[in-house]
């Protein structure tokens, strides 16, 4: 093979370089508009796609989002428009709450009608039940309805009061729950998850099955969170590839 004599070519390169490097061509008039549009589109992009974070930060964010997802998935369905039903069972703690004649032995049932109107401090009207033969406990001398003009929108709350002398020491019981709602779990998802984690830290074997108890949608939730994590990871990878 012969070695090429590029001396003159090198000189020629310099001459041509000098001539060409400052050469300018005409640019299509709409090119700037296209660039401007693209730049605007980039500015509109969500902030998180433009944030440059380290992989550790993204990983931490993903773990936090998984935990939040688990907790959200396990939380009771609050504020979802389910009508609240309040059932009130009131048992007087002592007989002093309603003055009774001393010779009353039998169980006395009364039906108390509470009428909510303009005067909340007014005493309630107490009606005697028709099948009760025992003495009337007490009747309001003047019904509230007679004191104030009755309104159509008056709200009535009926409270059944059972007076059982045998269970004098029983405390008042009030139970509030939502219709079609399963009993509230004692420990929420995150709490149970942390409990399992503590077990792992102590060296005991965790019972992951507990996390799924009472929540058939838990597995779906896990898949959703996992998919979100996977998509986030892909986005991060693409971002770093572009950089």
């Amino acid at each position, binding site marked *: 093979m012969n070695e090429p004599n590029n001396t003159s*070519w090198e000189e*020629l390169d310099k001459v041509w370089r000098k001539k060409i490097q400052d050469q300018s061509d005409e*640019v299509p008039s709409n090119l700037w508009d296209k660039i401007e549009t*693209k730049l605007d589109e980039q500015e509109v992009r969500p902030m998180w796609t433009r944030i440059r974070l380290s992989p550790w930060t993204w990983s931490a964010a993903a773990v936090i989002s998984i935990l939040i997802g688990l907790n959200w998935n396990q939380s009771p369905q609050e504020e979802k428009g389910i009508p609240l039903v309040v059932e009130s069972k009131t048992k007087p703690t002592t007989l002093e709450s309603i003055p009774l004649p001393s010779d009353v032995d039998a169980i006395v049932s009364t039906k108390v009608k509470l009428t909510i109107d303009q005067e909340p401090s007014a005493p309630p009207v107490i009606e005697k039940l028709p099948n009760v033969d025992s003495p009337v406990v007490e009747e309001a001398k003047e019904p509230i309805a007679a004191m104030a003009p009755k309104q159509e929108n008056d709200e009535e709350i009926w409270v059944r009061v059972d007076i059982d002398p045998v269970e004098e020491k029983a405390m008042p019981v009030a139970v509030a729950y939502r219709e079609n709602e399963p009993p509230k779990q004692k420990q929420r998802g995150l709490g149970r998850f942390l409990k399992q984690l503590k077990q792992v830290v102590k060296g005991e074997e965790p019972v992951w099955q507990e996390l799924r108890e009472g929540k058939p949608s838990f597995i779906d939730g896990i898949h959703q969170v996992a998919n979100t994590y996977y998509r986030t990871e892909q986005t991060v990878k693409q971002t770093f590839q572009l950089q």
Partner: protein
Amino acid sequence: MGQHAVFNRYSGKMMAVCRRYLGVGPDAEDALMEGFMKVFTKIDSFKEDGSFEGWIRRIMVNECLMKIRKQGDMYSKPIEEAWGIGQADEAFMYLCTAEIEALIAELPPGYRTVFNLYAIEGYSHDEIATMLQISAGTSKSQLSRARTMIQQKMKLIEL
């Protein structure tokens, strides 16, 4: 607006760069557009130790190379044919810019790319090998072929 000013100042020169690599057509315009998008979005990475125009030019050249790379392998030619090229004709020195551009534009894409990178941009064969993901020998081969072809074309013009 600063971006528009930068575009107005450098777009003509960069259009010439893109057309020298990709020819007159939509590819050159696309490369110019993508190149300016990178200029505006990566302006933070510009270090002031070099010239701003040189930085923009490198971005444009890279954009052009990316487009050329998509066109496939055009550098796989035997190296042995590269050598044995004579000296340049003195007439080459007096060619005007338009004639030089026309000569370069007529080269096949592979030759044209290496010739542009070596003769016009001033990159070494090793740098070109890295940029095009070919060997330094292939880069030399392509350059020699490009020069041979230019010589042949000049002879045709003189005749």
